[in-house]
């Protein structure tokens, strides 16, 4: 019925993200975050987007997860964070369960699962580049400006003011 690879990868995504949030030891949470990014990259590969998958691993695992881990290592003075599990947990579980049930019933009712996916060739660099620079060139430069502003802002915020 369903592709076993898809089940495996999506199971990994869900499992690692739950572990990332619920780990009591913060470093384990950061490591699980990196594993979750890896699993999402696997999802991208299954979706015929290998370039985006490489983008995901290179940027998210190679930069973001490392930065998170670095911060957690230096900041956490006690290694075990004990969060009391209150009534909100059961409310959240109930709400998310209802949401999943609603989505599954929508998919089953409207026959969305029976629509065959369009046969796609794997999307790699050249096609992406053509579209990115052709249609979205201005967006690219704006993105560059945004990134530049974020770097300058982050560095300016992180430094200790004199006096």
């Amino acid at each position, binding site marked *: 019925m369903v592709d076993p690879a898809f089940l495996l990868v999506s199971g990994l995504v869900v499992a690692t993200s739950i572990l990332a949030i619920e780990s009591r*030891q913060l*470093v384990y949470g950061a*490591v699980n975050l*990196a594993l979750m990014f890896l699993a999402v990259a696997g999802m991208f590969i299954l979706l015929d987007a*290998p*370039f985006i*998958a*490489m*983008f995901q*691993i*290179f940027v998210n*695992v*190679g*930069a973001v*997860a*490392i930065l998170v*881990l*670095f911060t957690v*290592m230096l900041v956490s003075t006690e290694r075990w964070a004990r969060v009391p599990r209150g009534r909100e947990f059961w409310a959240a579980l109930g709400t998310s369960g209802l949401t999943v049930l609603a989505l599954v019933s929508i998919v089953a009712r409207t026959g969305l699962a029976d629509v065959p996916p369009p046969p796609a060739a*794997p999307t*790699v*660099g*050249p096609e992406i580049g053509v579209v990115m620079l052709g249609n979205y060139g201005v967006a690219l430069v704006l993105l560059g400006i945004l990134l530049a502003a974020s770097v300058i802002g982050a560095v300016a915020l992180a430094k200790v003011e004199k006096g």
Partner: protein
Amino acid sequence: MAVTDIWQMIKRLAELSFWLLVPITLFGIPAYYALERPIIQPYVLPFLTRLMSELMDPASLTFKVILYPGFTFVVIYAAFLVLIERKLAAKVQLRVGPQYAGRYEGVLQSFADMFKALSKEVIVPAGADRLIFLSAPIISMVVAGTLLAVVPPSPQSLIFDSPVSLLLFFSVISFSPLVILLAAWSSNNKFTLVGGLRALHQLVSYEIPMVVSTLGLALLVGSLSLVDVVRVQERLGLPFLLLQPLAALTFYITMVAELERIPFDIPEADSEIVAGWVTEYSGVNHLLLYGGAPVIKLYAFSGLFTTLFLGGWLGPPPIPPDLWFHLKTFLVILSVQALRAIYPRYRIDQLLRIGWGTLLMLALINLALTILLMGAIQVV
């Protein structure tokens, strides 16, 4: 070895065999008769015969992954590379190097080291995070091994190629700072943490120049597949070393920095912080983290350098393409190992300034020059 040691080993072996054999016979014999041999006949025997036949066939994936150009070949190659590095450094420093293991000039030294490491006590420091501490060497080896799958020695014996191979290589490399940081932190030792942070800054700083320096190559080739890179060099008749000298230089220097080799071995810095982030590891873990994974990465990086800039497996006929690839890779590895014997070590601030300033500038200049070059010769 003391008598108590042998006695302890015998006790542990007896314990292990008890806990393995008794449950297997207790549950296995009734299951064997009751369930009509469910596993052996239909599954295990055909699997074994298929495995053996695939291992004999040089074109099958099993052969490529396990034997050549995969793991076994590289491990044996790596063992000899370690020996060659020690001998080379020794000859440069007017010493002899390892000379006792093996009949001739200590050729079996690496294997002796491996057997020795297997018999050493594995010490996990007090307060260390056991899970991360013990799994860091394994993950480091898995990362190094995955790199091997991307480097193609020749079109017939490549494990994997795709339109994003180059990016896959860089993505797997970007795992290294993560593993090092985990290994450093889990040792519960403030000096290893400092070494790990230095390693993080170094690897992170030299990754951008490495990636940007291959941009010129991507411009010329129009694809990120490594086989395509060599094919374009074949068609042009020139290795990219001549067309992109700045990129080759930048890539070479960043390669040495990514491998944490001298002159960039400040994370390891064995006159300052003992052995840097590897300090608390002993026995097998030390072997894997300090000598196994770095040498395999050295082979993978040199293979990539050969593929990108020296023309991969290209060369005149009497020598087969695989051998050309390995000859060129070996020369690159030798040059990187020779640096070890010659240069002093960079300080962390010098190192970071070179990475972010000089090398990034060189890579961007190379990009500009490549654009002009493409405009001049209209390479498609």
